[in-house]
């Protein structure tokens, strides 16, 4: 069973969007990622490199005819880190809900 694990690397806003998009795909083309996340080529490249260095993303370069094509996907490690991060976020939200309810009960009594 997956354990909640807050991940600072994933949580940065641009990377969170990128990893969330990659988590929903098998492979995603560089162009699709750039257009879907409205990032510049250099910004996307930088984020992908950061995630690849952490072992969260695998980058594949191939050719379609003479045109180079770059794709990326989450590695098993990256997917596990993302799932752990989602659980951690859910836990933070649910704990906040619980403490809000308990404080309301305290106020009423």
């Amino acid at each position, binding site marked *: 069973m997956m354990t909640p694990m807050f991940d600072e690397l994933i949580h940065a806003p641009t990377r969170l969007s990128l990893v*969330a998009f990659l988590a929903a795909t098998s492979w995603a083309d560089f162009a699709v990622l750039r257009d879907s996340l409205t990032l510049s080529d250099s910004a996307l490249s930088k984020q992908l490199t950061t995630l690849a260095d952490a072992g969260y993303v695998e980058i594949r370069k191939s050719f379609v005819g003479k045109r180079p094509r770059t794709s990326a996907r989450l590695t098993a490690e990256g997917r596990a880190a993302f799932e752990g991060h989602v659980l951690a976020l859910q836990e933070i939200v649910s*704990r906040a*809900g619980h403490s809000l309810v308990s404080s309301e009960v305290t106020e009423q009594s």
Partner: protein
Amino acid sequence: MNDPNGLNDPSDPNGLNSLNGPDGPNDSTGPVGPIDPADAARALTEIDRRREQVLRRKVIPAWNWWTHAALIVVQTAAFESGRPVLMWSGVGLFVVCSLAVDLPVSRAARAAAPHRSLAGPGMAWRTLVGLVAFVAGLGGVAVATAFGLMAAKVPHPVTIAAAVAAVAFAVGGQLLVRLEQAVLVRRSAGRG
């Protein structure tokens, strides 16, 4: 060790109980983890939004449906003419044009194919059943229209029936894809 906020609590390796606020773990107004709950909720919303973006990506454009519809009508008209030259030309046109319009679509589909874990169990069967029912429905519309037109002695009944079925294919196909996407979005909610 100076650890007033219990950040090194061994029972909480993820720091989810660590305090960023001044009042302790039961402080309902301050953050209850490494980030503010509102920030966590926003992050979860963003994750949902990106998953939905992948699932609702328009892979098959409207022109693709209408091109196939037109090809169905042309092909049927060629067959109904009964002239071998037209029939074989129709077959050739159908194959070449279908490949030409489907190639970019299949490339676009592979550019960001949804991960299989999003569908959940039974989704492939559900899709298959929906597809078979759709094709059977189109066949039923075509056959019923063709027989009705034949009975009314309308000229070119098969081509007209194919045109009716082709319009149903183009309109219904797009609706079916949207329905499938909506079902996938609903079923994948909370899967991260």
